[in-house]
């Protein structure tokens, strides 16, 4: 028997992925998690269930099936149309207590970071945050790997309690192949919400209208630091970003100078990103910046100081003036 099994009489079963949507689509990170958990489900012989809470959730069911879900549970309620910590915790807590899953996995997004710990505490279980690794393990079922000290060290974490819970950093796992021939059992569950859980109301949402991908999920990020010299120059990066479908980011120096909004800051006191390509322009590569982008797969540095620390990390570096290099690079990307 597995160590620390809390429910003696009913054996926990199955892997649950809590999906998140953005507008009409399931978020990319949720599909990444379904793809990875499909692998773990196949290795362990567990059933993979996708859970979707919200309004008009049915439209997401087929996509979840196509990325590997065996079952899709829909939690449909007007009060779930917008995410609130209380209402979501209420319905998911009920569902999980009833279904008794072995593992519950979420994306490390704004919602995941807020919901998962609340749910874990209500369920009386542990949780691994912001994982950059998750593997099936015979003894512990799932072993997680997660960065600490801004990526300067990694822990291997396991749970002694069920359900095993974790949030996973976007872009950690590759998307599986979408298979429209796959189908899943679709189940509608009732959604009771405790009155106590409705004490926070969303009055307004202001979304930034942008054609660019969301920073934490972006495959490519082009970031500018103090070397950008002023707010107007971010156009140079934006022009490049639009050619390669990138998101724009920044160092703290640029944010603190007031050139670009706080929400674009990458680093220890900003966003943690994990793109396949990170292009750092006029960024020196301070340890706190690295804490936010060190897990990028490929790093490019453009900096006029040949001794800048960023060159010690970059896979490709150009020593030069970004005002000259970036527009040339944009032209070259356009030709590809």
């Amino acid at each position: 028997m597995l160590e620390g099994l809390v429910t003696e009489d009913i054996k926990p079963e199955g892997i649950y992925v809590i999906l998140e949507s953005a507008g009409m689509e399931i978020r990319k990170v949720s599909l990444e998690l379904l793809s990875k958990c499909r692998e773990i489900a196949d290795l362990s012989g567990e059933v993979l269930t996708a859970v979707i809470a919200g309004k008009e959730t049915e439209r997401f069911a087929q996509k979840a099936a196509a990325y590997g879900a065996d079952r899709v549970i829909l939690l449909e309620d007007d009060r779930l149309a917008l995410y609130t910590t209380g209402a979501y915790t209420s319905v998911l807590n009920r569902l999980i207590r009833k279904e008794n899953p072995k593992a519950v996995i979420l994306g490390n997004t704004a919602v995941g970071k807020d919901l998962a710990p609340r749910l874990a505490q209500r369920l009386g279980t542990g949780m691994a945050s912001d994982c950059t690794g998750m593997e099936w393990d015979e003894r512990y079922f799932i072993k997680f790997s997660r960065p600490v000290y801004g990526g300067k060290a990694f822990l291997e974490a396991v749970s002694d309690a069920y359900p095993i819970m974790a949030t996973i950093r976007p872009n950690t796992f590759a998307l599986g192949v979408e298979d429209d021939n796959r189908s899943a059992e679709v189940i509608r569950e009732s959604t009771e919400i405790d009155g106590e859980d409705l004490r926070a109301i969303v009055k307004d949402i202001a979304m930034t209208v942008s054609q660019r991908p969301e920073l934490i999920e972006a495959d490519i990020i082009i970031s500018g630091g103090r070397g950008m010299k002023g707010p107007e120059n971010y156009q140079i990066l934006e022009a490049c970003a639009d050619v390669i479908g990138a998101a724009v980011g920044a160092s703290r120096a640029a944010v603190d100078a007031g050139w670009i909004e706080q929400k674009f800051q990458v680093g220890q006191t900003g966003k943690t990103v994990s793109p396949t390509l990170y292009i750092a322009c006029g960024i020196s590569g301070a340890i706190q910046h690295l804490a936010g982008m060190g897990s990028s797969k490929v790093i490019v540095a453009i900096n006029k100081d040949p001794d800048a620390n960023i060159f010690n990390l970059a896979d490709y570096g150009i020593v030069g003036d970004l005002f000259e290099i970036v527009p040339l690079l944009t032209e070259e990307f356009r030709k590809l």
Partner: protein
Amino acid sequence: MNIIVCLKQTFDTEAKIQINSSGGIDSTGVNLVINPYDEFAVEEALKLKEAFGGTVTLVCMGREKAQEALRTALAMGCDQAVLICDPALVNADEWVVAEVLAKAVGQLPFDLILTGRIAVDDGSGQVAVRLAEALHIPSVSSILKLEAEDGKATVTREIDGGTELIEVSLPAVFTAQKGLNIPRYPTMLGIMKAKKKELKVLTLTDLDMAVETAVPKMKCLSCSLPKPRTGGKKLDYQPSEAAKELARLLREEAKVI
């Protein structure tokens, strides 16, 4: 308004991380600071106190040394501090920390609780939200703006791709995001005054908690250092050549474009 700030002492963000002989993180010689996000929480609490009166109480779970961080926050203007320090808490996970903090906070009068959105050491960002759950009160994460009044608060919080305006009943827990304010520095006078402020050090027994109730749910099997990144190719050509070569390499060699 009585405000509680949960604060943690962390390694300086510049700290070099090493693994010690027992396989854990080595803390010898490391400079310790207040978790940077918790400074935003302290600042916000002091601003609320300035506006409404009341007290700001610091609550921390940590080692003996964490008293230094508490003294610094007292010097910024907080009124009193509680440190929960017990050898049984060495391997505490987020579940345990939340239970312990909830016990300590439960003994104090409060209207709201502020803390940082994440601690830069373990990077887990769970404790504040768990604490709210343990206290059965609401929480709002990653706030950029806070307006509190009697029994109610209106907050702006960061979400992916935008912001959200939330109205919530008090008491509640809020986690501070950078942008909320600019933390003040302790003044010389503040430092002098802080020496006389009350700093209670409590054990689990003082909190009426049995050691067996502080058993973690998560366990760490091992710690490791990442493979260091080594500088790759420097493209030492004329700008136009370098740009051309970079575009080619990103497509053909790295296959990321």
